[in-house]
């Protein structure tokens, strides 16, 4: 093994170094001096993001335990950027008055989960995948309970760790069955032996259930709303965007490589799960008044749309899912950016509080509208193309029923997304959110989302590149 081989792992190495730097900076902090570490963390993430954009060789390390391809690097970059935006948007919260000490923990915890996701994506072995998954889960529970003196934040952390434990148990059970059925944990060997015997199918379903928990697919989604509502907004947006994006991508890669031989068997299952997820997510989202809960259900239904593309199983399916993840990162972070800015400035979190927002804070209202339009899939924002490609992938495989059901669900989702827009633009309010200015760091985060939404819609190059990197079954 040569020193150059470590270049393959530069994302992981840099991030580990970053975590250590923040940890050290906190340990050697002069006594009695408060520091938010926000600037440091943002700087470090920016460096990692930029370093990630450099061209990278592909290959595998440690006897196939660790694999790196251009597509993996691309997705890692997307996640890194998402994390950077989360940090930018959390800036005013982290630098504001807070009852907590040890602010560095927020960054250390989130960066650790990101590290876990990197390993998850690059794993070439089920055990490695599991370790990555756990590293990506346990710190999130701690982060969800970060605001620990607040009841619902503590409750949220607790619920997350308990549900996560159950899902891990089922996932591990699935992995052990996979080992029993094929005699290996390496992806390549497992793929070679996977023919769809009943034991293998059972193993597959259990493994899928474990991952489905992370993506909050119905019926493994029940934790989502409670955790999203209780956790601090920064953590929620991280959970709903970065964490979900990573798990979706891992599921995508596994389905298209390891389980490709049984595609005809998992396609009907994804069909059922996709439909149930879209319908349940939408039906619950209809009645939500609390913004974070609202987004929780909206993100569940979004996962359902992603499954539509996943189920297609062709090259278009893969590229459309990757593209949608990127678009989804921008849209959801846009929504969360606005929610967290308003929460930080006024403490308001209910949909009624957004009445008349356009008249006091037009820019925030516009960004929110743009992001919601993108989630709903209205042209010309990026979300339209994202949904279009997802549905096109499924239609190409002749899954017209699925596409029609997904389109019907899009119509329902349009209703509740537009409810928020209506509240902001049309409803009147005697006590609207007063005008406020966000600090420039937070604003950078918001502007990045807006740019992403518009540019991704028009810049076909991005999609084209993803398409070239993708492959079908």
């Amino acid at each position, binding site marked *: 093994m040569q020193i150059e081989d470590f270049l393959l792992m530069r994302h992981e190495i840099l991030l580990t170094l970053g975590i250590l730097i923040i940890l050290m900076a906190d340990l050697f902090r002069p006594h009695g001096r408060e520091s938010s570490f926000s600037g440091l963390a943002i700087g470090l993430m920016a460096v990692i993001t930029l370093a990630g954009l450099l061209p990278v060789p592909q290959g595998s390390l440690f006897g196939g335990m660790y694999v790196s391809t251009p597509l993996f690097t691309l997705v890692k970059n997307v996640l890194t950027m998402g994390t950077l935006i989360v940090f930018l948007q959390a800036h005013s919260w982290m630098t504001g008055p807070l009852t907590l000490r040890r602010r560095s923990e927020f960054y250390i915890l989130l960066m650790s989960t990101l590290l876990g996701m990197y390993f998850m994506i690059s794993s070439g072995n089920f055990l490695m995948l599991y370790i990555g998954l756990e590293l990506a889960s346990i710190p999130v529970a701690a982060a969800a309970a970060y605001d620990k003196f607040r009841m619902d934040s503590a409750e949220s952390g607790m619920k997350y760790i*308990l*549900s996560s434990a159950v899902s891990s148990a089922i996932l591990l059970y699935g992995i052990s069955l996979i080992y029993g059925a094929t005699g290996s944990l390496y992806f390549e060997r497992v793929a070679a032996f996977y023919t769809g015997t009943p034991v293998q199918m059972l193993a597959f*379903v259990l493994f899928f259930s474990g991952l489905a928990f992370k993506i909050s697919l119905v*019926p*493994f989604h*029940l934790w989502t709303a409670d955790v999203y509502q209780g956790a601090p907004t920064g953590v929620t947006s991280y959970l709903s965007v970065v964490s979900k994006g990573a798990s979706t991508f891992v599921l995508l890669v596994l389905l298209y490589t390891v389980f490709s031989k049984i595609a005809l068997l998992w396609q*009907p*299952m994804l069909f059922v799960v996709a439909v149930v997820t879209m319908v349940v997510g939408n039906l619950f989202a*209809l009645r939500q008044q609390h913004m974070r809960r609202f987004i929780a259900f909206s993100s569940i239904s979004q996962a359902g749309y992603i499954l539509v593309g996943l189920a297609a199983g062709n090259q278009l399916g893969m590229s459309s899912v990757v593209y949608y993840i990127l678009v989804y990162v921008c849209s959801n972070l846009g929504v969360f950016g606005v929610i967290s800015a308003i929460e930080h400035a006024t403490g308001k979190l209910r949909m009624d509080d957004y009445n008349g927002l356009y008249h006091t804070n037009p820019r925030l209202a516009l960004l929110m509208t743009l992001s919601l339009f993108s989630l709903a899939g209205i042209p010309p924002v990026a979300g339209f193309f994202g949904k279009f490609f997802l549905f096109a992938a499924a239609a190409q495989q002749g899954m017209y029923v699925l596409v029609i059901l997904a389109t019907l669900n899009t119509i*329902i989702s349009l209703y509740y997304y537009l409810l928020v827009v209506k509240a902001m633009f049309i409803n009147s309010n005697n006590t609207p959110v007063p005008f406020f200015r966000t600090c420039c760091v937070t604003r950078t985060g918001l502007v990045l989302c807006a740019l992403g939404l518009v540019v991704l819609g028009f810049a076909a190059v991005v999609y084209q590149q993803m398409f070239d990197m993708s492959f079908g079954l």
Partner: protein
Amino acid sequence: MIFSLAIWILALPLMMFLFLGLAGHKLKPATAGILGTAGLGVVALLSYTVAAVYFFGPSREGGLQPEVLFSFDWLHFTDQLQVKLGFLLDPISAMMLVVVSTVSFAVHLYSNGYMHGERGFQRFYAFLSLFTFSMMGLVVATNIFQMYIFWELVGVSSYLLIGFYYEKPSAILASKKAFIVTRFADLGFLIGILVLSYYAQTFDFITLTSLEGPVIGHPVGATFLGVSVLTWALVLIFMGGAGKSAMFPLHIWLPDAMEGPTPVSALIHAATMVVAGVYLVARLFPVYVLAAPDALMVVAYTGGFTALFAAVIACTQNDIKRVLAFSTMSQLGYMMLALGVSGYGGHDGLGFMASMFHLFTHAMFKALLFLGAGAIIHAVHSNFMTDMGGLRKHLPITHITFLLACLAIAGIPPLSGFFSKDEILVAAFHSNKLLFFVAYAVSGITAFYMFRLYYNIFWGVRREYPHPPHEAPLSMSLPLMILAAATIFAGFIPFAQLVTSDGQPFEIHTEWVVAVPAVLIGLTGILVATLMYKSEKTLPDRVAAFFGPLYRWASRKFYFDELYMFITKRILFNKVSSPVAWFDRHIVDGFMNLLAYLAQRSSFLIRGLQSGHIQGYVFVFVLGAVLLSAYMLLFVTL
């Protein structure tokens, strides 16, 4: 290389539009104007260089071949179906680059003076830039889909500019009319594109027009109502072109479009956008002439009829801009006629060359006429020739340039109009005698109404003006002089060496049998106008009375607006729209309401599932895994 800079021909106007549109209100009007003009100056220089290198550079050997300067996939659906955005350089697009950038630059410069002090000055420049960007994109489109995108964009910018004075109800109505009529035509265009590309399996112009390509080399045998689908497709595509180029019967928007500021009329409704239809037919010309001659006949006769029809109306109008608008329609009909009578390759392609030649010269002198009209309106604050007369003393520069343009359009040698018109007449003479005589008649009427206009403005009654009219400022007279120079010299450009149907140069020579009568007819028209209008007489009224109903008919534009109003309001709205609206309101909306009701209802019913108890969550989780396994094992695997 210079070709790598070509992207700036598109990028610069777009950037200017974004900048002036977003930040324009923070700039001083003068700054915005200078910025816009300077930007267009650069674009014009770039266009000239690109065209010059293309026409006279090393690629000349063995005829001018189309070149794709760059192209990238915008939407990639499958390997067969993809939408590209690119830059296609061939003789006609290179020529159009010169036309669009020259006229656009002149108009940008001119507007500094003409629009001075108007509200929304910066907005005006932003829209002008948007238009230039769209028009350039249309011209250099590598495929019919890109052309369609930019086709709609020029439509939008035209709409925005016609309605620039958005406080004036007539301007709003006119902009809506222009948009709706051309949109209606574009529906045909879109269907035509879909049919054509379905059978050809490509959007790409080079593949579409190549002689061995899927369309010309292996024409499809499918027919619809006894006519081959290819002919249908091309007629439908021509419908789009007819809408943009104001061909009968889709012409009704152009006269009303004169509600826009005069520089806009010069740029969009005289020189560039309205020739898009001619350009479209020219772009697909090999397909028309080789694979669907029937469709080309439709083009020829539509063009011929429009030329005559519009020329007759132009004789009766009193608003000077409307006279010019009908004259534009008539000349566009001329160009269509020339395309329609043309053959393919070598000297047979004379009509094609003549059409492009006339497009070029017409752009110059018609823009000049419009800008001159703008200077006149600027001086007397009225559009009507009844308010004018004897202006030649007050506006010397405008007078001379206007006269030059009138002589050019009347086809008097050695001005540019003579040469291009002559080629058209020769082409018609050799292929279709009926259209040839129509063309003769039109050229006589053209000379007549142009000089009717000229004498009414500059001669005739010497009247007292409330404000003494004064010559326009330099920013307005300079463009007039530039375009006047182009009007004089453009006729000497050896078009047959440069712009031909198959890229191969050929020799032309003047055919005196055709040219001499043409000049004589033009002179007769001028003479009649001189007798009638040079000094104040009652003769015009007596002539009008002599023609009686015909005159009234023509002056009301043959009642086409009224006819369309009747068809849309009485027939379409009542008989078609109302039932469709009912269906939409009750069936379509009803279905959506049902969906909404069901969603609300079931969402209420299942709310208990989200109890907040973690035990319940885990139970559902495990139950879900078990059910999924059962489903997979029982229904899918076995």
